[in-house]
């Protein structure tokens, strides 16, 4: 009996080996993401999107180890060390926040590991600090804000008040907006990261004579801001990147978000086969609508899987070359990497609408086409 099994197993293995170019070496992936505390919704979405893709691929030779960083840089570094040294993972992924990314990624890639970012894309890692082993499958931090700056020109806003938290991604955000925006600034404010009370800032907006407001406040900060803004009686048009209006947040903001314009590289109504299948299967499995974070997790997993089909993960050079080809079906449609391993992609403007009882986003149009980040030229990679 045992012999029979062995023979059959080797026959299957033979047919696989002869059947195609598949390397089928398998890989161990370490995911460090935020699953508890304030920003947990984002990490949960990335994880769920990622695991959905792994499950759909049906590959049991790919092992994913998931750990919670609780949004703490020191904890993220500890987990990364453990994953690299004792669990011997081949690829790291999962970090949501740019300050955590800056604490983990440079040392991980220096140790020869591959890092595929499903979210954070700090500018410091896109320009001179780019690395052949670091890939960002979501965006460079500035991108969505640049799109909103471009949209502000189209909407003919000339005096915008801009607002972001005081941390790397917040500074990238306002720089990104200003890069494309041609009008004047009515004011520019950095708030404390994690702040929940925006009365003082809203009073400044009211007093500034602005004709529109742009803000980047991810997670709970955006919820607090939108509710307080709606109650304050200031009725200037509001715009922001998708992070302030993603699916996980809209329910908590409520009708105060209706009609707000926001920019995103992904939306659930992008009409292509991959995306339609992704939205349907995500909804079926998790009983909620996917957010852009979920789509990023899904794309990150599919990117890694596509490279695993082409190269052995132990051969870092060949594997990162396979990643760079970006030969996978993205939920966004067209997708390719620039020289600095950051995406070149279309960015859309969306509007918050109500579908039945559920608040969600609908695409209005393209803000930027085949957009690449501004730091790519400083990156020595080809």
């Amino acid at each position, binding site marked *: 009996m045992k012999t029979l099994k062995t023979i059959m197993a080797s026959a299957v293995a033979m047919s696989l080996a002869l059947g195609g170019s598949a390397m089928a070496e398998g890989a161990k992936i370490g995911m460090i993401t935020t699953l508890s*505390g304030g920003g947990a*919704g984002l990490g949960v979405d990335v994880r769920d999107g990622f695991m959905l893709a792994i499950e759909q691929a049906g590959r049991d030779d790919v092992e994913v180890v998931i750990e919670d960083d609780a949004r703490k840089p020191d904890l993220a570094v500890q987990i990364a060390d453990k994953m690299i040294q004792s669990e011997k993972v081949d690829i790291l992924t999962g970090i949501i926040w740019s300050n955590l990314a800056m604490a983990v990624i440079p040392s991980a890639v220096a140790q020869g590991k591959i890092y595929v970012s499903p979210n954070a894309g700090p500018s410091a890692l896109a320009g001179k600090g780019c690395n052949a082993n670091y890939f960002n499958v979501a965006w460079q931090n500035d991108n969505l804000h640049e799109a909103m700056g471009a949209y502000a020109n189209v909407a003919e806003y000339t005096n915008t008040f801009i607002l972001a938290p005081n941390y790397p991604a917040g500074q990238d955000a306002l720089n990104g907006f200003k890069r494309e925006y041609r009008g004047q600034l009515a004011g520019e404010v950095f708030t404390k990261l994690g702040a929940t009370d925006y*009365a003082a*800032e809203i009073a*400044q907006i*009211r007093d500034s004579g602005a004709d529109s407001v742009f803000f980047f406040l991810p997670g709970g900060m955006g919820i607090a801001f939108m*509710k307080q803004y709606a*109650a*304050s*009686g200031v009725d200037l048009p509001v715009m922001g990147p998708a992070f302030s209006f993603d699916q996980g947040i809209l329910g908590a903001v409520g009708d105060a978000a209706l009609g707000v314009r926001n920019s995103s590289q992904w939306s659930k109504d992008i009409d292509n086969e991959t995306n339609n299948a992704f939205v349907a299967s995500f909804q079926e499995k998790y009983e909620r609508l996917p957010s852009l974070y979920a789509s990023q997790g899904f794309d990150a997993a599919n990117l890694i899987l596509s490279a695993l089909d082409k190269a052995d993960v132990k051969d870092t050079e060949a594997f990162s070359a396979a990643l760079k080809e970006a030969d996978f079906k993205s939920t966004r449609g067209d997708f390719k990497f620039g020289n600095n391993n950051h995406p070149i992609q279309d960015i859309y403007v969306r509007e918050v609408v109500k579908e039945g009882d559920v608040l969600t986003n609908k695409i209005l149009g393209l803000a930027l086409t085949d957009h690449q980040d501004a730091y790519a030229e400083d990156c020595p990679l080809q």
Partner: protein
Amino acid sequence: MSTTLLFEQLLNGLQYGVTLFLMAAGLTLVFGVMGLINLAHGSLYMIGAFACAAVAAATGSFWLGLVASIVAAGFAGVLIEMLVIRRLYDRDHLDQVLATFALILILSEGCRMVFGSFPLYLDTPDFLSGPVTLFGGFQYSAYRLAIILVGGLVALGLYLLITKTRLGIRIRAGEADREMIAALGVNIATLYTIVFAIGAALAGFAGAMMGAIQSVQVGMGEPVLILAFVVIVIGGIGSIKGALIGSILVGVVDTLGRVTLPGFFNLFMDTAAANSVGAALSSMSIYVLMAIILIFKPEGLVSNNA
């Protein structure tokens, strides 16, 4: 800066201070009467907010939610006091800090297991959701005005409770000399449970009121807790009056710091640098305030031993 803007910011500072007071009052009572450092006070704030959001979503009434927040946080307070805190009174502060820190982790993760990782929806009642026009055509959020009003009433209520009732006499006596009032036949265990429950209910109430204009999510209590500790250190540990003065001082200084510091640095720096330096310094402003006050008044503004 125009006068209306300054006035609006003062109102914002006052409103912020009043909310801090609801947190700090409970914290300072518990510390003053029982000598206990309770880090889990922020979790009670969170429990209040979640209870309010859950009940408001189920019944459609914010007011029922508000009642639920007080009941839930008060009840959680009684449970926590009887199961955990009671064993800590005779231990040193390090044990108390460790145990109540563990409570933060347990309650946060418990909340996440029950309600999920995504923020809950909780909105202000309809008639308070818009702005009201104050004198001179200047608009202010009705809900924030209501918070100032309610906070003032709670402060008055606490003052009457402490100075005019039998319970208040026992609380003050407990602060002054706990062996003596135990010897006089007061059931000190019950008194402690009641004081802890009052503090918890106030924190839950604050959580529900702030949850309606902020976001109801796991971990929402800890940032407020840190500020509440600053407040009671400034005000003088154990003093309700000190907590009131301290919280309004902190609220106003924090708000005005956020508004004025970037402008101040802009006088001699370029805008981008002034914004980040101003933002960084304004988040330190209340700690600078605390340091200055402690230099001149090491026991806080209102000292119990005076």
